[in-house]
């Protein structure tokens, strides 16, 4: 059996592990167009902030790859010929396959503003982008950050750690309004300002200004101009579906796959950020840009490619991240129902499920750095945002993902005189699930 995997991210690596768990002799080829191969993309944030060295970003050694027993080709696939089960690299080389997996991920949506072609303007898709940004990140220089979600904040904080003068433009009144509530946004904004980031509200860049072919500032919708030496943006990502479209595979916003990660061609599979998968919680086909889901999907796709029927059930979207230095966990459905003006598509580390407005009641507690928000359904918890103290994020993740019946504590959770953290902790203590100390 000949397996070919296009893309060298976590979904592809997980697929190889899955294939090898059932097929030890099949021939596996991975084709990647990132010059750096497989590395931790979420780790770029910590590389930017100087918390780790770029060499640390590579999870696997050459020896470990050798044991996985696959061939790696650096290159870009130009065409997929479905009938002949072949694909063609840009250099012309033909490669045949029995089973193909497309895990090419998503890429940053380009900034659609006059002047966006100028030098000194960067996105954060790859390690190469991060390296370019750092090359230009000089102490004391001013950088303008445009966009929303986690990546925009990672850019702002990373460059602040590099002692740049960071100005963050928000189109609306607050940060990440599609996932966070007003108070949560305020907490993050307050902390950013304390750290030294200058926030500009209702600030829409209409034009990027030029000096010697380089960015020199932006002109805002209100007519004001803001000078800068560097401009970075993260306005969302878009699945890389061009290749699949060319091959006449079914696509919407991503490549449409069934519960077996199979496209409309039974020999071709897709997983990770490029795939639009069935989400049982909403009954829709949704996109995610989450590392853990990409890994799960890649693994399930690998098993299916190797002949095992392994249905993929989308797990509860879950992400832990640091927002303005505050550990924040977003679990399940927590959306505010607002549309985030700072994002065009889905952001990295984001899931569309988070945005769905649940028809439920929110209970809140805590101020400033420790905050917990629960989205309480009729019988179960649908979502949670835990900021600061993370002791309860693990229990909450389990309670939400395993749809545990919360009827015994529902009244208590809605009773404003009781602390919801105490109620959850007590409930968890009496559940027979694995616990932390």
């Amino acid at each position, binding site marked *: 059996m000949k397996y070919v995997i296009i893309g060298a991210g976590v979904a592809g690596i997980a697929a190889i592990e899955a294939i090898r768990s059932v097929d030890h002799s099949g021939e596996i080829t991975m084709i990647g167009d990132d010059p750096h191969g497989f590395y931790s993309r979420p780790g770029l944030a910590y590389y930017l902030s100087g918390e*780790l060295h770029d060499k640390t970003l590579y999870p696997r050694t050459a020896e470990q790859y050798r044991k996985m027993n696959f061939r790696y080709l650096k290159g870009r696939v130009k065409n997929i010929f479905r009938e002949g089960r072949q694909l063609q690299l840009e250099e012309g080389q033909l490669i045949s396959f029995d089973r193909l997996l497309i895990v090419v991920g998503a890429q940053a949506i380009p900034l659609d503003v006059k002047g966006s072609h100028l030098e000194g303007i960067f996105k954060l898709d790859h390690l190469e982008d991060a390296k370019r940004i750092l090359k230009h990140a000089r102490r004391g220089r001013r950088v303008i950050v445009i966009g929303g979600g986690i990546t925009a904040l990672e850019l702002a904080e990373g460059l602040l750690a590099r002692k740049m003068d960071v100005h963050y433009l928000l189109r609306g009144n607050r940060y990440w309004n599609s996932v966070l509530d007003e108070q949560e946004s305020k907490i993050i904004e307050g902390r950013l300002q304390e750290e030294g980031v200058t926030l500009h509200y209702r600030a829409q860049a209409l034009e990027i200004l030029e000096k010697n072919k380089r960015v020199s500032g932006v002109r805002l919708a209100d007519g004001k101009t803001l000078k800068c030496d560097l401009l970075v943006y993260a306005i969302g990502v878009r699945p890389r579906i061009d290749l699949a479209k060319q091959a006449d595979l079914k696509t919407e916003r991503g490549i449409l796959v069934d519960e077996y990660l199979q496209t409309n061609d039974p020999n071709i599979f897709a997983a990770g950020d490029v795939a639009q998968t069935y989400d049982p919680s909403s009954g829709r086909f949704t996109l995610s840009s989450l590392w853990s889901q990409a890994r799960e999907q890649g693994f399930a796709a690998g098993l299916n490619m190797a002949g095992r029927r392994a249905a993929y059930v989308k797990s509860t979207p879950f992400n832990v991240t640091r927002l303005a230095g505050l550990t924040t966990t977003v679990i399940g459905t927590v959306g505010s129902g607002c549309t985030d003006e700072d994002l065009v598509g889905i952001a990295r580390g984001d899931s569309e499920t988070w945005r769905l407005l649940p028809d439920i009641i929110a209970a809140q507690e805590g101020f400033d750095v420790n905050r917990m928000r629960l989205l309480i359904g009729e019988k179960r918890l649908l979502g949670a945002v835990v900021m600061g103290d993370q002791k309860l994020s693990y229990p909450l993740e389990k309670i939400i993902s395993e749809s545990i019946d919360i009827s015994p504590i529902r009244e208590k959770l809605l009773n404003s005189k009781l602390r919801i953290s105490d109620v959850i902790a007590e409930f968890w203590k009496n559940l027979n699930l694995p616990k932390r100390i």
Partner: protein
Amino acid sequence: MLDLFRYDAKKHTILAAGQVAPDADRCVQCGICVYNCPVGIDVRAHAWRGEPIIHEYCLTCGECVARCPRGALRFEKTDLFSKKK
């Protein structure tokens, strides 16, 4: 201050009867744990497999637990020293 003592006491208990355990779902393989491990244990590889860091050189010093930006590592009691019921 009191919290600090509590943390210290907890740390000592764990040194004697604990280990570092990962939550594979939270780990994004960034490598901050490896970068900060004073004895160079490949904590990340354990995290990928979801296996506790049972390693003869592990000091259970907690550097990896404290530095992990995703809260993927935690201390876990081993029943090595606990009285059996």
